[in-house]
């Protein structure tokens, strides 16, 4: 049986979720690792190499999560907010 269409979102909502998943998820992933990194200044090598594999895992999880939320605007809001918070942490403590 294919997936039941009644649970899937409208076209506009779908585009919001797809873009939030890919672009928003990427922005959160990158800014998260950098925010963590500013507190680990003596472990920059370890940070880089950990982010090399963990980034993809986190990004994919954020992609899955984006589709779980009913409202596409809401998920964009969450990811934008997280991106801003992590960027502020990075810029404040670097």
């Amino acid at each position, binding site marked *: *049986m*294919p*997936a*039941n269409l009644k*649970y*899937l979102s409208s076209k506009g909502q779908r585009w919001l979720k797809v873009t939030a998943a890919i672009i928003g998820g*990427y922005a959160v992933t*990158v800014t998260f*690792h*950098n925010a963590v*990194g*500013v507190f680990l200044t003596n*472990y*920059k*090598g*370890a*940070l*880089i*190499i*950990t*982010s*090399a*594999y963990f*980034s*993809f*895992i986190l*990004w*994919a*999880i954020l*992609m*899955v999560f984006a*589709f*779980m939320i009913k409202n596409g605007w809401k998920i964009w809001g969450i990811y934008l907010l997280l991106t801003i918070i992590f960027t502020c942490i*990075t810029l404040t403590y*670097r």
Partner: protein
Amino acid sequence: MMELKALKPRLHNIMFHTHTVSGIVICFALFVIFYAGAFALFMDELYQWENPNARITTVDASKVDYDKIIEKVKEVHPKFDSTKQFGIVPPTAKQPLSYFYGSEKVNDSTTTRFTAYVNPASYEVNVAGEEPTTHMSRTIYQLHFFRQIPVVGIYLSGVVSFFFLFAIFTGLLTHWKNISNKFYAFTVKGKWKNIWTNSHISLGFITLPFQLIYAITGALFGLSILLLLPTAFLAFNGDTASVIEAINPSAAVKYSDDAKPIEGAFSYNDAYKKVSAENPDYPIIYILSRNYGLEDGTITVNVDDSKGIAANGSFIFGYKDGNTISALIPEKSSYSKSTLNILIKLHYATYGGLFLKIIYFILAMVTCYIMTSGVMIWRTARNKKTYTDKQRRFHHKVTKCYLALTMSMFPAVAIIFLANKIVPIELEGRTFYVNSIFFLGWLILLITGLFWDNYSKLNKNYIVIGSVLCLLIPVANGIFTGDWIWRTLISQQYYVFSVDFTAFFIGISGLLLNKYYLKVVDVTTVK
């Protein structure tokens, strides 16, 4: 039996749908990646088979005079510039010829790379130019990250790997409830739709760790630029060089463009002896130098026993005095300096010997099967009256194109093995001819397959063609090199023998499978 809770209906359907869409979009490219990659695992092992000039008696690598090799290359190839980076691969049982990778001056501003093969017993040097003499397994290797597509190929493979990770996560959540009950209900009897579904779930679960390794490392190798640039920008103030230095110690050594030539006190042989005396259990796999013959020159020795996940090391010595500049000791290097190598070893299966590579090969083939079963589930579930004829024709076309592309890879890989033997070894620019035969042959097979409207007929035809071509592989090797399968067995040339034998075994198995098992049944109701 373990009971797993199902997701709520809304979540289940969302995961199901995203799994289906991402799976169908990536399956074409991902199958090619896994199928070609499975063969690329054996790149080194295939080497003697593909290059008959390499079928010589193995010389003990510790008895080779590496400085003499450098002298010989200078004699044979006067344009060789020894101040640029060059390196020597010591001979091994797999590859009894020693490789020499160097640079040559074209004019004052440009240099090009060249490869030379050195016979470690007679020190006879053959310069091959930028491309090596035989390119068969390298072509297959390059196909697995779409190197043949200019510029974007590798990124495409990275994107596909990343969406594969997404498909793994959504697939795991979709089938969560069925993981254990379908696992025990696995059978090859009953309706095909059930066989596809059960095997998709249970084999998918078995191969999950293997697939996670490849999804993550594949995405990393293809898309590292996506991570490197922002990290460099934010954590290292835009300094990409120091990012690389943090994980790769050799990048931290600085060289001057106007270093003066000196007579160094340290040579390749000294470096080889020093490292092998200090690390007797770790074979030396590569010796390279930069600014060789200049005052700031270095000689680097890389070791790896290919048995442990962290069993590789790297030692850098000064050319001037032989002082150790940096040492990465096997099994003892730090997390930040060893992790990249661990990820590489996980991807290339170079941490557990030949047996591990065979397990990897089988798991890669199972992964290919999981993709095909996924496509078959997708199409069977949609082959119903609730869909319009137009929709059903579309589902049929996608399935047919997928099957033609993927199943034709079986005969296509056999074609490149044959082309490698049929195109004469001395022919100038032979790589081009071998690759053209491979890609054109594959294209013709693919297009022919699109005319076989019945899936089981398509499957059967490709298996028969592929099996016959496989049986020709040992024959071609016998005719063109004189090394018939029984001769290589008697003379214990196992790297040559095992390729011929495997091809023969696959060919026979394919024909037996065809005779006793494959029947043409019509499941393709929409034409």
